[in-house]
Protein backbone atom coordinates (compact mmCIF):
# COMPACT_ATOMS: atom_id res chain seq x y z
CA UNK A 1 0.00 0.00 0.00
CA UNK A 2 2.70 2.41 0.98
CA UNK A 3 4.54 3.21 -2.20
CA UNK A 4 1.47 3.70 -4.35
CA UNK A 5 -0.53 5.66 -1.82
CA UNK A 6 2.41 7.84 -0.93
CA UNK A 7 3.30 8.87 -4.45
CA UNK A 8 -0.32 9.70 -5.06
CA UNK A 9 0.02 12.36 -2.40
CA UNK A 10 2.97 13.95 -4.19
CA UNK A 11 2.33 17.09 -6.20
CA UNK A 12 3.42 15.49 -9.45
CA UNK A 13 1.21 12.42 -9.00
CA UNK A 14 3.89 10.32 -10.70
CA UNK A 15 4.73 6.73 -9.85
CA UNK A 16 8.28 7.23 -8.62
CA UNK A 17 8.88 9.88 -5.95
CA UNK A 18 9.17 12.47 -8.62
CA UNK A 19 12.70 13.07 -9.79
CA UNK A 20 11.62 16.45 -11.09
CA UNK A 21 10.77 17.78 -7.62
CA UNK A 22 13.78 19.48 -6.06
CA UNK A 23 15.21 17.68 -3.03
CA UNK A 24 14.24 19.12 0.33
CA UNK A 25 17.59 18.05 1.79
CA UNK A 26 20.81 17.56 -0.05
CA UNK A 27 23.97 16.47 1.73
CA UNK A 28 27.15 16.69 -0.31
CA UNK A 29 30.48 15.24 0.67
CA UNK A 30 29.83 15.64 4.37
CA UNK A 31 32.76 14.89 6.66
CA UNK A 32 32.58 15.00 10.44
CA UNK A 33 35.65 15.40 12.60
CA UNK A 34 35.90 15.50 16.34
CA UNK A 35 38.70 16.04 18.80
CA UNK A 36 39.54 13.14 21.10
CA UNK A 37 42.20 12.72 23.74
CA UNK A 38 44.29 11.03 21.06
CA UNK A 39 43.96 13.92 18.62
CA UNK A 40 41.44 14.65 15.89
CA UNK A 41 39.34 11.82 14.56
CA UNK A 42 37.29 11.56 11.40
CA UNK A 43 34.00 9.94 12.39
CA UNK A 44 32.20 10.16 9.09
CA UNK A 45 33.30 11.03 5.56
CA UNK A 46 32.05 11.35 2.01
CA UNK A 47 28.41 11.20 2.90
CA UNK A 48 26.09 12.11 0.06
CA UNK A 49 22.36 11.98 0.62
CA UNK A 50 19.38 13.57 -0.96
CA UNK A 51 15.75 13.31 -0.10
CA UNK A 52 12.68 14.75 -1.79
CA UNK A 53 9.47 16.00 -0.22
CA UNK A 54 7.32 13.08 0.86
CA UNK A 55 10.11 10.55 0.47
CA UNK A 56 11.35 8.11 3.13
CA UNK A 57 15.03 7.39 3.29
CA UNK A 58 16.36 4.77 5.67
CA UNK A 59 19.88 5.13 7.02
CA UNK A 60 20.98 1.65 8.08
CA UNK A 61 24.06 0.33 9.80
CA UNK A 62 25.32 -1.48 12.85
CA UNK A 63 26.02 0.37 16.06
CA UNK A 64 28.90 2.79 15.79
CA UNK A 65 28.65 3.08 12.01
CA UNK A 66 27.96 6.82 12.24
CA UNK A 67 24.21 7.08 11.77
CA UNK A 68 23.49 9.25 14.81
CA UNK A 69 26.54 11.40 14.22
CA UNK A 70 25.32 12.08 10.70
CA UNK A 71 21.83 12.96 11.91
CA UNK A 72 23.19 15.32 14.54
CA UNK A 73 25.45 16.91 11.94
CA UNK A 74 22.49 17.67 9.69
CA UNK A 75 20.78 19.39 12.63
CA UNK A 76 24.18 20.78 13.80
CA UNK A 77 23.41 19.83 17.37
CA UNK A 78 26.96 19.18 18.53
CA UNK A 79 29.27 22.19 18.50
CA UNK A 80 32.27 19.98 19.25
CA UNK A 81 32.02 18.44 15.79
CA UNK A 82 33.76 20.06 12.86
CA UNK A 83 31.69 19.72 9.71
CA UNK A 84 32.86 20.10 6.15
CA UNK A 85 31.01 19.67 2.89
CA UNK A 86 27.53 20.93 2.27
CA UNK A 87 24.09 20.46 3.79
CA UNK A 88 21.44 22.24 1.76
CA UNK A 89 17.94 22.39 3.13
CA UNK A 90 15.19 23.73 0.87
CA UNK A 91 17.83 25.52 -1.16
CA UNK A 92 19.67 27.11 1.78
CA UNK A 93 23.15 26.06 2.80
CA UNK A 94 22.99 25.19 6.51
CA UNK A 95 26.71 24.65 7.16
CA UNK A 96 28.29 27.86 8.37
CA UNK A 97 24.93 29.43 9.11
CA UNK A 98 24.99 31.38 12.38
CA UNK A 99 23.37 29.65 15.35
CA UNK A 100 20.48 32.11 15.38
CA UNK A 101 19.40 31.33 11.86
CA UNK A 102 19.86 27.61 12.43
CA UNK A 103 17.46 27.80 15.33
CA UNK A 104 14.76 29.12 13.06
CA UNK A 105 14.99 25.89 11.05
CA UNK A 106 15.26 23.47 13.94
CA UNK A 107 11.95 22.32 15.25
CA UNK A 108 9.96 24.19 12.66
CA UNK A 109 11.05 22.98 9.21
CA UNK A 110 13.48 20.29 10.24
CA UNK A 111 12.96 18.21 13.34
CA UNK A 112 14.21 15.13 15.08
CA UNK A 113 13.17 12.25 17.34
CA UNK A 114 15.60 10.24 19.45
CA UNK A 115 15.96 6.63 20.47
CA UNK A 116 15.21 6.64 24.16
CA UNK A 117 11.74 8.03 24.76
CA UNK A 118 12.28 8.40 28.49
CA UNK A 119 15.54 10.25 28.29
CA UNK A 120 14.45 12.52 25.47
CA UNK A 121 11.66 14.17 27.43
CA UNK A 122 12.31 16.70 30.19
CA UNK A 123 11.28 14.98 33.43
CA UNK A 124 10.14 18.14 35.21
CA UNK A 125 8.05 19.74 32.46
CA UNK A 126 4.49 18.77 31.66
CA UNK A 127 3.80 16.99 28.38
CA UNK A 128 1.76 19.98 27.25
CA UNK A 129 4.54 22.47 27.91
CA UNK A 130 6.98 20.30 25.99
CA UNK A 131 4.79 19.73 22.97
CA UNK A 132 3.84 23.40 22.82
CA UNK A 133 7.42 24.60 23.22
CA UNK A 134 8.48 24.61 19.54
CA UNK A 135 5.54 26.94 18.88
CA UNK A 136 6.05 29.08 21.98
CA UNK A 137 9.68 29.61 20.99
CA UNK A 138 8.37 31.08 17.75
CA UNK A 139 6.06 33.50 19.51
CA UNK A 140 2.80 31.61 19.05
CA UNK A 141 0.38 32.61 21.83
CA UNK A 142 -0.02 30.28 24.79
CA UNK A 143 -3.61 29.40 23.92
CA UNK A 144 -2.92 28.76 20.28
CA UNK A 145 0.22 26.71 21.01
CA UNK A 146 -1.72 24.63 23.54
CA UNK A 147 -4.53 24.07 21.08
CA UNK A 148 -2.20 22.95 18.31
CA UNK A 149 -0.24 20.76 20.70
CA UNK A 150 -3.45 19.05 21.70
CA UNK A 151 -4.47 18.58 18.08
CA UNK A 152 -1.10 16.99 17.28
CA UNK A 153 -1.29 14.65 20.27
CA UNK A 154 -4.82 13.70 19.22
CA UNK A 155 -3.58 12.92 15.76
CA UNK A 156 -0.87 10.70 17.23
CA UNK A 157 -3.47 8.70 19.08
CA UNK A 158 -2.80 9.95 22.60
CA UNK A 159 -6.20 9.33 24.15
CA UNK A 160 -7.67 12.12 26.25
CA UNK A 161 -4.89 14.46 25.12
CA UNK A 162 -6.29 17.62 26.69
CA UNK A 163 -6.18 16.04 30.10
CA UNK A 164 -2.91 14.17 29.69
CA UNK A 165 -1.05 17.29 28.64
CA UNK A 166 -0.93 18.16 32.33
CA UNK A 167 0.88 14.91 33.14
CA UNK A 168 4.61 14.36 33.29
CA UNK A 169 6.71 11.95 31.20
CA UNK A 170 7.18 9.45 34.02
CA UNK A 171 3.44 8.89 34.07
CA UNK A 172 3.53 7.62 30.47
CA UNK A 173 4.50 4.23 29.04
CA UNK A 174 7.40 3.93 26.59
CA UNK A 175 5.17 3.87 23.54
CA UNK A 176 3.18 6.89 24.72
CA UNK A 177 6.37 8.80 25.41
CA UNK A 178 7.58 8.15 21.90
CA UNK A 179 4.28 9.47 20.56
CA UNK A 180 4.82 12.58 22.64
CA UNK A 181 8.34 12.93 21.19
CA UNK A 182 6.84 12.59 17.72
CA UNK A 183 4.23 15.21 18.57
CA UNK A 184 7.01 17.59 19.63
CA UNK A 185 8.76 16.99 16.33
CA UNK A 186 5.62 17.38 14.25
CA UNK A 187 3.72 20.16 16.04
CA UNK A 188 5.28 22.94 13.98
CA UNK A 189 4.60 21.05 10.73
CA UNK A 190 8.16 20.48 9.54
CA UNK A 191 9.08 19.45 6.02
CA UNK A 192 11.64 16.89 7.14
CA UNK A 193 11.70 14.55 10.13
CA UNK A 194 14.87 12.78 11.19
CA UNK A 195 13.97 9.82 13.39
CA UNK A 196 17.01 8.25 15.09
CA UNK A 197 16.05 4.70 16.07
CA UNK A 198 12.60 5.86 17.18
CA UNK A 199 11.31 2.37 17.91
CA UNK A 200 14.41 0.48 19.01
CA UNK A 201 13.55 0.79 22.71
CA UNK A 202 9.93 -0.26 22.22
CA UNK A 203 8.17 -3.61 22.36
CA UNK A 204 7.31 -5.16 19.00
CA UNK A 205 3.62 -4.35 19.08
CA UNK A 206 4.22 -0.82 20.29
CA UNK A 207 6.88 -0.41 17.60
CA UNK A 208 4.39 -1.55 15.00
CA UNK A 209 1.81 1.01 16.16
CA UNK A 210 4.31 3.87 16.27
CA UNK A 211 5.62 3.03 12.79
CA UNK A 212 2.09 2.93 11.39
CA UNK A 213 1.39 6.34 12.93
CA UNK A 214 4.54 7.80 11.44
CA UNK A 215 3.52 6.30 8.13
CA UNK A 216 0.02 7.79 8.19
CA UNK A 217 1.09 11.23 9.28
CA UNK A 218 3.98 11.45 6.84
CA UNK A 219 1.55 10.48 4.11
CA UNK A 220 -1.06 13.04 5.08
CA UNK A 221 1.44 15.84 5.38
CA UNK A 222 3.75 14.98 2.51
CA UNK A 223 6.52 14.84 5.10
CA UNK A 224 9.99 13.65 4.16
CA UNK A 225 11.45 11.21 6.69
CA UNK A 226 14.97 10.02 7.34
CA UNK A 227 14.61 6.86 9.41
CA UNK A 228 17.74 5.76 11.18
CA UNK A 229 17.75 2.17 12.33
CA UNK A 230 19.72 -1.04 12.48
CA UNK A 231 16.59 -3.15 12.05
CA UNK A 232 16.25 -4.36 8.48
CA UNK A 233 12.70 -5.49 9.16
CA UNK A 234 11.60 -2.00 10.13
CA UNK A 235 13.29 -0.58 7.03
CA UNK A 236 11.51 -3.01 4.72
CA UNK A 237 8.12 -1.86 5.92
CA UNK A 238 8.76 1.87 5.92
CA UNK A 239 11.37 3.17 3.51
CA UNK A 240 11.41 4.05 -0.17
CA UNK A 241 15.15 4.16 -0.37
CA UNK A 242 17.93 2.78 1.79
CA UNK A 243 21.44 4.02 2.44
CA UNK A 244 23.76 1.59 4.20
CA UNK A 245 26.57 2.90 6.40
CA UNK A 246 29.67 1.08 7.45
CA UNK A 247 32.43 2.54 9.58
CA UNK A 248 31.51 6.13 8.88
CA UNK A 249 30.98 5.80 5.14
CA UNK A 250 28.04 5.10 2.88
CA UNK A 251 28.64 1.82 1.12
CA UNK A 252 25.42 1.25 -0.73
CA UNK A 253 22.29 3.13 -1.67
CA UNK A 254 19.26 1.84 -3.54
CA UNK A 255 15.48 1.77 -3.72
CA UNK A 256 14.25 -0.53 -0.99
CA UNK A 257 13.11 -3.36 -3.28
CA UNK A 258 16.36 -3.42 -5.23
CA UNK A 259 18.44 -3.45 -2.09
CA UNK A 260 16.66 -6.42 -0.54
CA UNK A 261 16.28 -8.33 -3.80
CA UNK A 262 19.75 -7.75 -5.15
CA UNK A 263 22.23 -6.21 -2.72
CA UNK A 264 25.47 -5.29 -4.47
CA UNK A 265 27.81 -4.80 -1.53
CA UNK A 266 29.16 -7.89 0.23
CA UNK A 267 28.42 -6.25 3.60
CA UNK A 268 24.77 -5.58 2.75
CA UNK A 269 24.47 -9.11 1.51
CA UNK A 270 26.00 -10.38 4.74
CA UNK A 271 23.64 -8.29 6.85
CA UNK A 272 20.58 -9.57 5.03
CA UNK A 273 21.76 -13.15 5.37
CA UNK A 274 22.36 -12.72 9.08
CA UNK A 275 18.81 -11.63 9.96
CA UNK A 276 16.54 -14.41 11.14
CA UNK A 277 13.11 -14.26 9.48
CA UNK A 278 9.87 -15.04 11.20
CA UNK A 279 8.22 -16.27 8.04
CA UNK A 280 10.62 -19.05 7.08
CA UNK A 281 12.15 -22.09 8.69
CA UNK A 282 15.65 -21.65 7.26
CA UNK A 283 17.81 -22.97 10.05
CA UNK A 284 21.31 -21.59 9.58
CA UNK A 285 22.10 -17.93 9.60
CA UNK A 286 25.10 -16.83 7.60
CA UNK A 287 27.07 -15.06 10.28
CA UNK A 288 29.67 -12.62 9.05
CA UNK A 289 32.89 -13.15 10.95
CA UNK A 290 34.46 -10.27 12.86
CA UNK A 291 33.12 -6.87 13.85
CA UNK A 292 33.11 -3.44 12.19
CA UNK A 293 36.37 -1.49 12.42
CA UNK A 294 36.12 1.66 14.49
CA UNK A 295 36.52 4.92 12.57
CA UNK A 296 40.05 5.51 13.89
CA UNK A 297 41.26 2.13 12.66
CA UNK A 298 40.01 2.31 9.08
CA UNK A 299 42.51 1.08 6.51
CA UNK A 300 43.30 3.40 3.61
CA UNK A 301 41.27 1.16 1.32
CA UNK A 302 37.93 -0.55 1.88
CA UNK A 303 36.80 -0.46 5.52
CA UNK A 304 35.06 -3.81 5.13
CA UNK A 305 38.12 -5.57 3.72
CA UNK A 306 39.01 -7.50 6.86
CA UNK A 307 35.62 -9.25 6.84
CA UNK A 308 34.97 -9.44 3.13
CA UNK A 309 34.71 -12.90 1.58
CA UNK A 310 35.63 -11.66 -1.92
CA UNK A 311 38.43 -9.27 -1.04
CA UNK A 312 41.58 -9.02 -3.12
CA UNK A 313 44.81 -7.50 -1.79
CA UNK A 314 44.29 -4.18 -3.54
CA UNK A 315 41.01 -3.62 -1.68
CA UNK A 316 43.06 -2.81 1.42
CA UNK A 317 44.89 0.06 -0.23
CA UNK A 318 42.52 1.37 -2.91
CA UNK A 319 39.38 2.92 -1.54
CA UNK A 320 36.16 2.13 -3.39
CA UNK A 321 33.91 5.16 -3.91
CA UNK A 322 30.13 5.15 -3.96
CA UNK A 323 29.32 4.94 -7.68
CA UNK A 324 26.01 4.44 -9.40
CA UNK A 325 25.53 1.13 -11.19
CA UNK A 326 24.37 1.09 -14.78
CA UNK A 327 20.91 1.06 -13.25
CA UNK A 328 21.29 4.61 -11.94
CA UNK A 329 19.09 4.20 -8.87
CA UNK A 330 21.51 1.76 -7.24
CA UNK A 331 24.91 2.94 -6.03
CA UNK A 332 27.61 0.88 -4.34
CA UNK A 333 31.11 1.42 -2.95
CA UNK A 334 32.88 -1.81 -3.82
CA UNK A 335 35.46 -2.78 -6.42
CA UNK A 336 33.66 -6.03 -7.07
CA UNK A 337 29.93 -5.55 -6.62
CA UNK A 338 27.88 -8.71 -6.44
CA UNK A 339 26.54 -9.73 -9.81
CA UNK A 340 22.84 -10.43 -9.96
CA UNK A 341 22.67 -14.06 -8.98
CA UNK A 342 20.24 -16.51 -10.48
CA UNK A 343 18.20 -17.95 -7.66
Amino acid at each position, binding site marked *: *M*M*TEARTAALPSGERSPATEVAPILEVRDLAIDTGTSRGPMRLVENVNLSIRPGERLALVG*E*SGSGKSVTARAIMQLDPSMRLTGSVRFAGTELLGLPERSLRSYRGSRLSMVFQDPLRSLNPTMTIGEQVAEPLRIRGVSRREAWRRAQATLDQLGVANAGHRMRSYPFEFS*GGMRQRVALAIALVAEPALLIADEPTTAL*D*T*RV*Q*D*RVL*KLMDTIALERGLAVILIT*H*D*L*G*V*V*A*GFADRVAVMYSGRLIEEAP*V*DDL*YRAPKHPYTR*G*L*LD*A*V*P*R*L*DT*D*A*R*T*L*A*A*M*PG*TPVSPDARPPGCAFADRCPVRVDDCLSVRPVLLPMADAAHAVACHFPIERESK
Partner: protein
Amino acid sequence: MNTPDILTVRSITKTFASRGRPAAKALDAVNLSVSEGSIAGLVGESGSGKSTLIRCIMGLERPDTGTIIFDGTDMSVAGREEWRKFRQQVQLVFQDPFSSLDPRMTVESTVGEGLVIHKKSMVKNHRRELVATALESVGLSASDMNRYPRSFSGGQRQRIAIARAIVMRPRLLVCDEPVSALDVSVQAQVINLLKSMQAESNISILFIAHDLAVVRHLCDSVSVLEHGKIVESGRSTEIFGNPQADYTRSLIAASPIPDPAVQREKSRSSLAQ
Protein backbone atom coordinates in the same frame (compact mmCIF):
# COMPACT_ATOMS: atom_id res chain seq x y z
CA MET B 1 8.23 -35.96 23.40
CA ASN B 2 9.71 -38.93 25.12
CA THR B 3 12.90 -37.29 26.29
CA PRO B 4 12.75 -36.55 30.02
CA ASP B 5 12.57 -32.96 31.23
CA ILE B 6 15.73 -31.51 32.67
CA LEU B 7 13.74 -28.61 34.13
CA THR B 8 10.10 -28.37 35.09
CA VAL B 9 8.49 -25.23 36.39
CA ARG B 10 5.23 -26.18 38.04
CA SER B 11 2.58 -23.59 38.73
CA ILE B 12 4.82 -20.79 39.94
CA THR B 13 3.12 -17.68 41.28
CA LYS B 14 5.01 -14.62 42.42
CA THR B 15 3.47 -11.44 43.76
CA PHE B 16 5.32 -8.22 44.52
CA ALA B 17 3.66 -6.21 47.22
CA SER B 18 4.36 -2.52 46.97
CA ARG B 19 3.31 0.12 49.43
CA GLY B 20 0.17 2.04 48.51
CA ARG B 21 -0.64 -0.07 45.48
CA PRO B 22 -2.41 -3.39 45.19
CA ALA B 23 0.02 -6.29 45.03
CA ALA B 24 1.11 -7.02 41.45
CA LYS B 25 1.19 -10.58 40.16
CA ALA B 26 4.46 -10.82 38.26
CA LEU B 27 3.95 -14.54 37.63
CA ASP B 28 0.61 -16.29 37.69
CA ALA B 29 0.57 -20.10 37.82
CA VAL B 30 3.38 -20.46 35.28
CA ASN B 31 4.15 -23.91 33.92
CA LEU B 32 7.17 -24.53 31.74
CA SER B 33 9.43 -27.40 30.86
CA VAL B 34 12.75 -27.86 29.11
CA SER B 35 13.32 -31.35 27.79
CA GLU B 36 16.82 -32.77 27.89
CA GLY B 37 18.98 -31.63 24.99
CA SER B 38 16.50 -29.14 23.59
CA ILE B 39 16.31 -25.39 23.33
CA ALA B 40 13.16 -24.01 24.93
CA GLY B 41 12.17 -20.45 24.16
CA LEU B 42 10.28 -18.04 26.36
CA VAL B 43 8.93 -14.91 24.69
CA GLY B 44 7.09 -11.97 26.14
CA GLU B 45 7.04 -8.21 26.07
CA SER B 46 8.90 -6.10 28.55
CA GLY B 47 7.50 -6.40 32.04
CA SER B 48 5.76 -9.68 31.25
CA GLY B 49 7.77 -11.49 33.93
CA LYS B 50 10.59 -13.17 32.01
CA SER B 51 13.39 -12.07 34.31
CA THR B 52 11.29 -12.73 37.38
CA LEU B 53 10.77 -16.31 36.24
CA ILE B 54 14.50 -16.74 35.76
CA ARG B 55 15.17 -15.38 39.22
CA CYS B 56 12.70 -17.88 40.64
CA ILE B 57 14.29 -20.74 38.72
CA MET B 58 17.77 -19.79 39.87
CA GLY B 59 16.61 -19.62 43.48
CA LEU B 60 17.32 -15.89 43.69
CA GLU B 61 13.68 -15.18 44.40
CA ARG B 62 11.28 -17.30 46.42
CA PRO B 63 8.02 -17.96 44.58
CA ASP B 64 4.76 -17.62 46.55
CA THR B 65 3.57 -21.03 45.41
CA GLY B 66 4.73 -23.70 42.98
CA THR B 67 7.83 -25.79 42.53
CA ILE B 68 10.95 -25.93 40.41
CA ILE B 69 12.08 -29.42 39.55
CA PHE B 70 15.59 -29.85 38.22
CA ASP B 71 16.65 -33.27 37.00
CA GLY B 72 13.98 -34.95 39.12
CA THR B 73 14.77 -33.01 42.30
CA ASP B 74 12.20 -30.66 43.80
CA MET B 75 14.38 -27.66 44.55
CA SER B 76 12.06 -26.23 47.18
CA VAL B 77 12.94 -29.09 49.50
CA ALA B 78 16.48 -29.60 48.23
CA GLY B 79 19.33 -29.78 50.68
CA ARG B 80 22.74 -28.15 50.61
CA GLU B 81 24.35 -30.84 48.45
CA GLU B 82 21.58 -30.73 45.86
CA TRP B 83 21.81 -26.97 45.63
CA ARG B 84 25.55 -27.24 45.13
CA LYS B 85 24.97 -29.60 42.25
CA PHE B 86 22.28 -27.27 40.88
CA ARG B 87 24.58 -24.22 40.99
CA GLN B 88 27.15 -26.15 39.02
CA GLN B 89 24.85 -27.71 36.48
CA VAL B 90 22.68 -24.70 35.75
CA GLN B 91 24.47 -21.64 34.41
CA LEU B 92 23.18 -18.20 33.58
CA VAL B 93 23.98 -15.79 30.71
CA PHE B 94 22.73 -12.22 31.00
CA GLN B 95 21.40 -9.74 28.51
CA ASP B 96 23.95 -7.01 28.78
CA PRO B 97 27.45 -8.16 27.79
CA PHE B 98 28.85 -4.83 28.95
CA SER B 99 27.78 -4.81 32.58
CA SER B 100 27.77 -8.52 33.30
CA LEU B 101 31.57 -8.83 33.16
CA ASP B 102 33.82 -7.39 35.85
CA PRO B 103 36.07 -4.90 34.04
CA ARG B 104 38.95 -5.51 36.46
CA MET B 105 39.12 -9.24 35.91
CA THR B 106 41.04 -10.86 33.10
CA VAL B 107 39.20 -13.20 30.78
CA GLU B 108 40.98 -16.12 32.40
CA SER B 109 39.84 -15.26 35.92
CA THR B 110 36.33 -14.38 34.74
CA VAL B 111 35.86 -17.65 32.91
CA GLY B 112 37.68 -19.71 35.54
CA GLU B 113 35.89 -18.21 38.54
CA GLY B 114 33.22 -20.91 38.75
CA LEU B 115 35.90 -23.61 38.69
CA VAL B 116 37.73 -21.93 41.55
CA ILE B 117 34.52 -21.85 43.59
CA HIS B 118 33.16 -25.29 42.81
CA LYS B 119 36.28 -27.35 42.18
CA LYS B 120 38.68 -26.11 44.80
CA SER B 121 41.02 -29.03 44.47
CA MET B 122 41.63 -28.46 40.76
CA VAL B 123 45.25 -27.61 39.93
CA LYS B 124 45.89 -24.34 38.19
CA ASN B 125 47.20 -25.83 34.96
CA HIS B 126 44.22 -28.06 34.55
CA ARG B 127 41.95 -25.06 35.13
CA ARG B 128 43.81 -23.08 32.48
CA GLU B 129 43.30 -25.90 30.05
CA LEU B 130 39.56 -26.00 30.67
CA VAL B 131 39.30 -22.23 30.30
CA ALA B 132 41.23 -22.36 27.03
CA THR B 133 38.97 -25.09 25.70
CA ALA B 134 35.86 -23.17 26.67
CA LEU B 135 37.16 -20.04 24.97
CA GLU B 136 37.98 -21.95 21.82
CA SER B 137 34.58 -23.56 21.73
CA VAL B 138 32.93 -20.12 21.68
CA GLY B 139 35.19 -18.97 18.88
CA LEU B 140 37.70 -17.02 20.94
CA SER B 141 41.33 -17.93 21.25
CA ALA B 142 43.30 -19.16 24.23
CA SER B 143 45.62 -16.22 23.74
CA ASP B 144 42.77 -13.90 24.79
CA MET B 145 43.03 -15.17 28.37
CA ASN B 146 45.07 -12.32 29.74
CA ARG B 147 43.03 -9.52 28.18
CA TYR B 148 40.38 -7.49 29.96
CA PRO B 149 36.71 -7.28 28.92
CA ARG B 150 36.96 -3.67 27.77
CA SER B 151 39.14 -4.63 24.84
CA PHE B 152 36.42 -6.91 23.42
CA SER B 153 33.42 -6.06 21.28
CA GLY B 154 29.86 -6.73 22.43
CA GLY B 155 29.63 -10.03 20.62
CA GLN B 156 32.98 -11.18 21.95
CA ARG B 157 31.96 -10.24 25.48
CA GLN B 158 28.80 -12.27 25.14
CA ARG B 159 30.99 -15.16 24.03
CA ILE B 160 33.11 -14.67 27.14
CA ALA B 161 29.92 -14.78 29.21
CA ILE B 162 28.91 -17.99 27.48
CA ALA B 163 32.39 -19.44 27.96
CA ARG B 164 32.13 -18.60 31.67
CA ALA B 165 28.90 -20.61 31.77
CA ILE B 166 29.95 -23.63 29.73
CA VAL B 167 33.30 -24.10 31.40
CA MET B 168 31.29 -25.60 34.27
CA ARG B 169 29.97 -28.21 31.81
CA PRO B 170 26.42 -27.30 32.76
CA ARG B 171 23.49 -29.45 31.70
CA LEU B 172 21.22 -26.42 31.47
CA LEU B 173 22.07 -22.96 30.21
CA VAL B 174 19.61 -20.20 31.11
CA CYS B 175 19.95 -17.18 28.81
CA ASP B 176 18.10 -13.93 29.59
CA GLU B 177 17.92 -12.04 26.28
CA PRO B 178 21.52 -12.88 25.41
CA VAL B 179 21.39 -11.33 21.93
CA SER B 180 19.10 -8.34 22.45
CA ALA B 181 21.95 -5.91 22.92
CA LEU B 182 23.90 -7.18 19.93
CA ASP B 183 24.08 -6.07 16.31
CA VAL B 184 22.59 -8.33 13.65
CA SER B 185 25.85 -9.68 12.33
CA VAL B 186 27.07 -10.40 15.86
CA GLN B 187 23.71 -11.72 16.96
CA ALA B 188 23.92 -14.32 14.21
CA GLN B 189 27.32 -15.43 15.49
CA VAL B 190 25.95 -16.00 19.00
CA ILE B 191 22.80 -17.76 17.75
CA ASN B 192 24.87 -20.10 15.62
CA LEU B 193 27.16 -20.76 18.57
CA LEU B 194 24.26 -21.77 20.81
CA LYS B 195 22.83 -23.94 18.07
CA SER B 196 26.11 -25.77 17.50
CA MET B 197 26.64 -26.22 21.24
CA GLN B 198 23.30 -27.96 21.44
CA ALA B 199 24.15 -30.20 18.52
CA GLU B 200 27.61 -31.12 19.77
CA SER B 201 27.26 -31.43 23.52
CA ASN B 202 23.58 -32.16 24.05
CA ILE B 203 23.27 -29.21 26.40
CA SER B 204 19.75 -27.95 27.23
CA ILE B 205 19.00 -24.26 26.91
CA LEU B 206 16.25 -22.04 28.25
CA PHE B 207 16.35 -19.03 25.95
CA ILE B 208 14.51 -15.84 26.86
CA ALA B 209 13.86 -13.26 24.16
CA HIS B 210 11.39 -10.75 22.86
CA ASP B 211 12.38 -11.16 19.21
CA LEU B 212 10.13 -13.85 17.75
CA ALA B 213 12.26 -14.39 14.68
CA VAL B 214 15.28 -15.25 16.80
CA VAL B 215 13.20 -17.68 18.84
CA ARG B 216 11.69 -19.36 15.83
CA HIS B 217 15.12 -19.75 14.42
CA LEU B 218 16.74 -21.23 17.48
CA CYS B 219 14.17 -22.94 19.67
CA ASP B 220 12.57 -26.37 19.52
CA SER B 221 9.69 -25.33 21.75
CA VAL B 222 8.22 -21.98 22.77
CA SER B 223 6.15 -20.59 25.61
CA VAL B 224 4.48 -17.22 25.30
CA LEU B 225 4.21 -15.13 28.44
CA GLU B 226 1.71 -12.28 28.76
CA HIS B 227 1.43 -10.31 32.01
CA GLY B 228 2.78 -13.21 34.05
CA LYS B 229 0.60 -15.87 32.42
CA ILE B 230 1.63 -18.46 29.85
CA VAL B 231 -0.93 -17.99 27.09
CA GLU B 232 0.42 -20.59 24.72
CA SER B 233 3.15 -23.19 24.55
CA GLY B 234 4.20 -26.00 22.30
CA ARG B 235 6.56 -26.96 19.50
CA SER B 236 8.09 -24.01 17.69
CA THR B 237 6.87 -25.08 14.28
CA GLU B 238 3.30 -25.44 15.51
CA ILE B 239 3.17 -22.17 17.36
CA PHE B 240 4.64 -20.10 14.58
CA GLY B 241 2.82 -22.04 11.89
CA ASN B 242 -0.54 -22.02 13.58
CA PRO B 243 -0.73 -19.71 16.58
CA GLN B 244 -3.82 -20.20 18.75
CA ALA B 245 -3.78 -17.35 21.26
CA ASP B 246 -4.77 -13.87 20.08
CA TYR B 247 -1.80 -12.49 21.92
CA THR B 248 0.63 -14.71 20.01
CA ARG B 249 -1.05 -13.76 16.74
CA SER B 250 -0.73 -10.07 17.49
CA LEU B 251 2.94 -10.51 18.36
CA ILE B 252 3.56 -12.32 15.10
CA ALA B 253 1.62 -9.76 13.11
CA ALA B 254 3.62 -6.92 14.62
CA SER B 255 7.04 -8.46 13.96
CA PRO B 256 8.62 -6.84 10.93
CA ILE B 257 9.90 -9.11 8.17
CA PRO B 258 13.05 -8.01 6.35
CA ASP B 259 11.43 -8.16 2.95
CA PRO B 260 9.68 -5.14 1.41
CA ALA B 261 7.28 -7.22 -0.68
CA VAL B 262 6.13 -9.25 2.32
CA GLN B 263 5.75 -6.14 4.44
CA ARG B 264 3.62 -4.46 1.80
CA GLU B 265 1.46 -7.54 1.61
CA LYS B 266 1.13 -7.56 5.39
CA SER B 267 0.04 -3.96 5.70
CA ARG B 268 -2.38 -4.41 2.81
CA SER B 269 -4.06 -7.30 4.57
CA SER B 270 -4.09 -5.49 7.91
CA LEU B 271 -5.86 -2.58 6.19
CA ALA B 272 -8.35 -4.96 4.59
CA GLN B 273 -9.36 -6.29 7.98
